[in-house]
């Protein structure tokens, strides 16, 4: 909302970054203060899905598209399971829409943010902010409508705890097991695989896709012991997305180690990092992460490119999973730092992992050559770093859920699926 169209009545707000950058604006959500790590998201639509995505816990999200809130909000787009509110700390926009329009809309984004206590600032040059984050990396930041003193707020940002210091997964995970309702069209039981969802911040979009793919899913707390999962009679386990530093959730990682080889395992985002760590590999923090709906990822098994939705700051270090097996890697024995080495050759290289045998790189990000998916060849497991459920974003990778079911059912070639499948109808 422009100052001359009513924004002069909104309280003033201040955005401060740990490097001393400050930007003034107006409050367009809840009043108060929020500290967190600032990231930018380049999706042009899907702000409600982003705001309500549990993976953003502990973060302040700046939208690069300048006018946000245009089509309002609707409960159907919320991504937190079980009606939980947004977990992110704050929202930064250039221009907030207070008068949305869309037949699905039940209210405005600023009202929604206010209701859920999310602090938000508008009137910021979000492009300049984005370029700054791109150059400096993800930074600690704060939005305040209380402390409008530049030096004071910057000092308090610097003193605030880093995102890695806290286990955000514990904040957003379910407290007790919950069965997901089956898709309306199918009845329970009868050849439907039973899946344990280890909830580190499970997005509703993922839950819905698992159900739509034919799974009977039960959502379990993030720290459920592996023995409990294995005792539950599940056919497969799903390791969900989630917020924060993957190293802050050792319990989930420990669970993953136990599950591998015993159940069919599928992981997304944090789940991918869990599998990596479970295999003894390492994860690294990307300079400013991937947050958007336009990232090209090649499925090395098909050579097809998926335009993908992404939201992660950490990622797998492929070379850490073990030495390359030249026989299975087109004769190449030396790891490439930039994995586009493989996408250019259309080769899915395989490493020898000490714990779990052969692990294949299946997906590569074409923008920066980072790994986006791995497949265990000697135990039934695969994982993706990006978001095949989209919400928001393109549906190209939606086949991953069907792949999971095919893996559970024993199809050896479960992951080589053409993105065009399922596009029509």
């Amino acid at each position, binding site marked *: 909302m*422009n*100052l*001359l*169209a*009513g924004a002069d009545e909104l309280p003033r707000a201040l955005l401060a970054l740990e490097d001393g950058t400050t*930007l003034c604006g107006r409050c367009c959500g809840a009043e108060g203060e929020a500290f967190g790590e600032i990231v*930018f998201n*380049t*999706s*042009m*639509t*899907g702000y*409600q*899905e982003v705001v309500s995505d549990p993976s953003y816990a502990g973060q302040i999200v700046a939208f*690069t*598209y*300048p*006018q946000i809130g*245009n089509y309002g909000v*609707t409960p*159907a*787009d919320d991504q937190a399971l079980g009606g939980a509110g947004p977990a992110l700390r704050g929202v930064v926009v*250039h*221009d907030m*829409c207070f*008068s*949305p*329009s*869309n037949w*699905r809309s039940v209210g405005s984004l600023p009202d929604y943010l206010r209701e859920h206590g999310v602090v938000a600032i508008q*009137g910021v*040059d*979000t*492009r*300049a902010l*984005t*370029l700054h984050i*791109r150059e400096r990396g993800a930074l600690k930041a704060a939005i305040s409508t209380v402390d409008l003193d530049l030096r004071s707020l910057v000092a308090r940002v610097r003193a605030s705890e880093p995102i890695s210091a806290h286990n955000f997964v514990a904040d957003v995970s379910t407290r007790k097991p919950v069965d997901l309702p089956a898709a309306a069209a199918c009845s329970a039981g009868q050849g439907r695989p039973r899946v344990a969802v280890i909830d580190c911040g499970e997005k509703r979009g993922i839950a819905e896709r698992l159900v739509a793919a034919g799974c009977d899913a039960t959502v379990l707390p993030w720290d459920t012991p592996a023995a409990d999962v294995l005792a539950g009679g599940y056919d497969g386990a799903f390791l969900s997305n989630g917020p924060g530093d993957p190293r802050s959730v050792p319990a989930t990682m420990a669970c993953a180690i136990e599950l591998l080889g015993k159940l069919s395992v599928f992981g997304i985002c944090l789940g991918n990092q869990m599998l990596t760590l479970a295999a003894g590999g390492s994860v690294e923090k990307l300079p400013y992460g991937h947050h*958007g*709906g*336009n990232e*090209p990822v090649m499925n090395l098994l098909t*050579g*097809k*490119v998926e*335009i993908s939705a992404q939201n992660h700051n950490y990622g797998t270090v492929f070379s850490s999973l073990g030495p390359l097996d030249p026989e299975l890697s087109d004769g190449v024995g030396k790891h490439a730092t930039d994995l586009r080495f493989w*996408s250019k050759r259309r080769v899915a290289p395989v490493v020898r992992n000490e714990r779990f045998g052969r692990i294949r790189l299946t997906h590569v990000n*074409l*923008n*920066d050559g980072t790994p986006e998916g791995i497949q265990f060849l000697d135990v039934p497991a695969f994982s993706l770093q990006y978001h095949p459920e*989209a919400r*928001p*974003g*393109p549906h190209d990778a939606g086949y991953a859920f069907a792949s999971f079911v095919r893996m559970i059912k024993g199809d050896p070639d479960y992951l080589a699926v*053409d*993105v*065009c499948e399922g*596009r*029509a*109808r």
Partner: protein
Amino acid sequence: MPKRTDIHKVLIIGSGPIVIGQACEFDYSGTQACKALRGEGYEVVLVNSNPATIMTDPDTADRTYVEPITVEAVTKVIERERPDALLPNMGGQTALNCAVALDEAGVLARHGVEVIGCDIASIQVGEDRELFAAAMRDVGLEVARSGIARSLEDCERVADELGYPVVIRPAFTLGGAGGGMAHDRDELLRIAREGLSLSANGEVLVEQSVEGWKEIEMEVMRDVAGNGIVVCSIENLDPMGVHTGDSITVAPCQTLSDVELQRLRDHSLAVLERVGVACGGSNVQFAVNPTDGRVIVIEMNPRVSRSSALASKATGFPIAKMAALLSVGYTLDEITNDITGATPACFEPSIDYCVVKVPRFAFEKFRGTSETLTTRMKSVGEVMAMGSTFEEALQKACRSLEQGHAGLGADGLMEYVEDDAAFLDLVSRPTPQRIFYVAEALRRGWGERRVHELTGIDPWFLARMGDIVRAERSLREGGVAGLTSERLMAAKEMGFSDAQLAWLVGQREETVRALREVLGVRPLVKTVDTCAGEFASHTNYHYLSYEAGGTTEFRQAARPRVVILSAGPNRIGQGIEFDYCCVHAAMALTARGFETVMVNCNPETVSTDYDTSDRLYFAPLTFEDVMDVVERERPVGVIVTLGGQTPINLARRLAQAGVPIMGTQPDAIDLAEDRDRFSGLLDRLGVAYPPSSTAETIDEAREVALRLGYPLLVRPSYVLGGRGMAIVYGEGDLATYMAEATEVSPDHPVYLDAFLEDAIELDVDALADGTDCHVGSVLEHIEECGIHSGDSACCHPPFSLSDRIVRWVRAITRTLALAVGVRGLLNIQFAVKDEQVLVIEMNPRASRTVPFSSKATGVPLAKLAARIMAGETIAQLRRLGELGEEKDEAGLFAVKEAVMPWARFPGADSTLGPEMKSTGEVMGIGRSFPAAYAKTRRAIDYGLPRGGKVFVSVCDRDKRAIAPVATSLVGLGYELIATAGTAKTLRAAGLACEVVRRVSEGHPNIVDEIAGGEVAFIINTPHGHESRGDGSILRAEAVNRDITCVTALSATTALVQAIVAAREDALDVIALQDLT
């Protein structure tokens, strides 16, 4: 997959002349395709009849044929060049249609030419409504319910089944020509009759109406591997019912949620796959029900389009270039994104600004036609603006139109009727000005809900406009004292121009600018980078925007900068020709070591391609916006004489603001354009010109008329394209003209010139450097004086003038160029009457004929002009061998002919006159004048009248001269029919002819005869204001039936010669590269 090595030579077909629905966006795409393919080592052969294009420059393609886009001519090119492949999806519907025809004629198979980019079958599925509907059902998508009709009865039957309103769409036409929405039976019959006659296969689709639904376009690309991306979504502000080319459109889509938009993305890619677009760019249009999200597929175009040009400019993703690379086998992931230089082209651009396109119309040129916008496109150009918000972009787009708007109102330009009923109609009926009425309705407190109900415009857009209106009120109430830095910044963030702010607070524009300067409210340079800042970009594609506390992305340059002001939106009288000149200047000056900075707001053009100049600013061509660019770039010079009248109109103010003008100085421009100063100069130099005078009132005009005698050519000053120009034959006409003239250009008087009947008109393009002058071309017009030079055909070299006259014309050109002080290009129009040479007017700037003259003579006039402006002299250019001696004889004749948009404007009279009405031009090159002229006729009509009856009806003045022409026609085997008066003349000449009734004489009459389908062409020369009535009905019927109607005797003679030439001469195709 890497590029194909089994093909070496690729034929690209262009889109032909600029017509409504198919404009210079196809020069942009074709030029990109040529560059991309040559860059990959392919040999490119090009066919396009439009000389005003960059793609037909001899160095754009390897082999360039400026020939008609007909099966006949293209077959000859194929026979001569033997290409391996044909890329048909760069030249709009014209190229696709030609490809289909070549395929059907067996030419492609015979010569082993493979169609790449899209195949013939997919073109047919994309274009044939019935096939398309079936294909969509296959992939589970809904299309509007419809029925195919082949007769009026069919149409009625289908419409009764579907229920009114219905939409009528003919198959295989451009920009929805011949289509429209019918709310009742009468409308249905009227539209269907026209649609059936225009449809290439005699079919029309009668379709359920989705009027009022949201209209969304998706620009999609796909490669041979099956990778698909959506480059851009575009939302029409005007809902379904208005052709997307006539709608205000916004990118990205604003009012759809991610769930809805992703579904459209899936649909779009599924449509491409089903239609069978193997690779390339396509456009898919959807209607979305605003109340429940239901989606209907409207159409898809398996080719680059106007929308894909817009999407390319809006995102920085060059669709045509990519499509060309995909067609030779690359996949999207193998191509690098030009802008980032580091990431692949296989991604979907994310933009962090809002883009608004507003069409520009020319209804003022076509009196008598309705201004209501329909599913049939009528706009002649468009502007695009970028801003951080929709509000900013919309206001910038409004002022980019160059129609006097300083933004969305708040500028004192328009007066709105008080009467609510009359105003209601203006708000609810879609017209070119409706957006301003909508704003006014909001100003009047009608409320967004009511305006939404009246217009169907989404409430989100109305709320944004409501905010603009609210801000406007706040600014007005706050007055100049209220313009604090915070509020001034907020106003600029909303896109208010200095002129609007000045009007709102009762100050001068200069004062607002000075205040901004003092308060530090300045625009920031922002960059179009395809990725919303996620990756570093290396391309200087910019727009200006205001951000409180923001950061500029301006980068210093090492080399001296030159700012080139281009021509803004295409309009009748100022189009692609000027863009061509600006592009040439950028090429020439970049090569000379300057950093070139282009400023323009027209998304269709080559000049707004980010790699045409070193820096591109997408900005309105107003004083404020140009000054903002100049203040950032601090150039060594600004070029104002290549972009038509647009930059010329800014020249004086820029100079006064201390901006260095490169080339001809504003005072010299004024000397040539100010009639009094110019005639003073002519008197002093002893150069003859038609007696003329000025008048500010009707009494003064009467007095002038008495002195000079009728007929008189009357016109306002400082206009382009003959706007408001007329020939008056008596006092009645004069009074009418003077009464209407004030609305044209209020600050300037009306000029009255003695009109030279039957004089030959000449156009001269020349270069001058202050001490020397090089006459580039002397063009002889076919049509006589009195018909606007832009609408007249012309020929190089002159075909009927003596050497003495040509030498005389050259001498006067030299004298005037030096006397006025031209540095760069100039154009002079001459009239030759009774062996006397008279100067009609002089324009000290690039003219519309520069591209044609350059191609006809092989001398790149615009490039040389830019170098002269930057300090080189003609003598130096000659020494460098860049410029040869003046010459007229080339052994070949080049003819330029104008293309008229009559069929788009039913109700407007289709005669030529002093006001320009053509939208484009074609060129024909031949070994004789008639052969060259015959090519131009074929390039326009795609054929020449072969046999049958010729209807002749000429005014008294032409009766003597008609007999020889008619004799030739009879000799060629035509039968003559004529009205009684003309028949008398013909019979006196011993020619047999049938007499038919005039329309006013009852039935059966000439119109019935035309309807009978036996009339091959019509010769009808009107005289003066007799243009209304009988002749007008006749010409309208000719337009409807697509029958050639010649309205000037001179053109008749040329046409008859052309018919002869076409019969005798095989009309060989000629490559430009072979001319020198």
